[in-house]
């Protein structure tokens, strides 16, 4: 844990991912009444993490810092919701649910970060 501090990188990537997803959700919600607008979506963090999009970059020396947390979140795709007569595919209810989910994910990431920081602080004998 203390060599690479991977837990910090992972929680940082998670928080970043949540932020990017929130921006996409905001765009969908702002365009909820725009004719012909197609709702966009970013895959959840767990999915893009297991697909390896946020995994560590290969390091040639152990001293190098991996760029995992700095990699950009998964590419933006279109969500396949039902179309309304004017060609808009945004569902306000669905976006609301997603926004709550994202906020919880963000809070979780920050809690992990803060807790790890506390552990680190305690281990070096500061309170």
């Amino acid at each position, binding site marked *: 844990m203390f060599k690479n501090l991977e837990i910090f990188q992972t929680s940082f990537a998670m928080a970043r991912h949540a932020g990017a997803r929130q921006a996409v959700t*905001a765009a969908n919600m702002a365009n909820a009444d725009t004719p012909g607008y197609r709702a966009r979506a970013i895959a959840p963090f767990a999915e893009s993490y297991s697909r390896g999009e946020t995994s560590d970059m290969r390091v040639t020396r152990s001293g190098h810092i991996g760029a995992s947390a700095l990699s950009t979140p998964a590419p933006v795709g279109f969500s396949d919701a039902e179309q309304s007569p004017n060609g808009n595919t945004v569902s306000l209810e669905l976006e609301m649910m997603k926004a709550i989910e994202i906020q919880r994910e963000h809070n979780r990431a920050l809690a992990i970060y803060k807790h790890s920081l506390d552990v680190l602080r305690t281990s070096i004998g500061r309170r």
Partner: protein
Amino acid sequence: MTDFSDAMSITASGMKAQAARLRHVSENIANADTPGFQRKTISFEAEMAAGQPTGRVETGRVRLDRTDLGQIYDPSHPMADESGNYAGSNVNLLIEIADAREAQRSYEANLKLFDQVRQMSSSLMDLLRK
């Protein structure tokens, strides 16, 4: 952090667009009894910058509803023709109220999201506190 400020400006654009829509709806309702008034409509468009959608929404230009004006029978009206009819407005109050409701719902959704993004960014700032 840029994601948060992006999200905030996007939801703000959504609220602005819905407010503009509500303004035109109230204009229509206020003029429901004005003779010869044609109802105004505005369109929503996804804002583009350099060929890419920015995510923000903007309102298009104001258009007039071209449907026929309603004929109202009132021989004592100063604008009445020989048959006793005069042209009223083509505002349908039912449609306007429904439109206003929808605008309100969308406005609330955007406001809710704005608040949520603000909470997220302030909880991020709380990390700096010991």
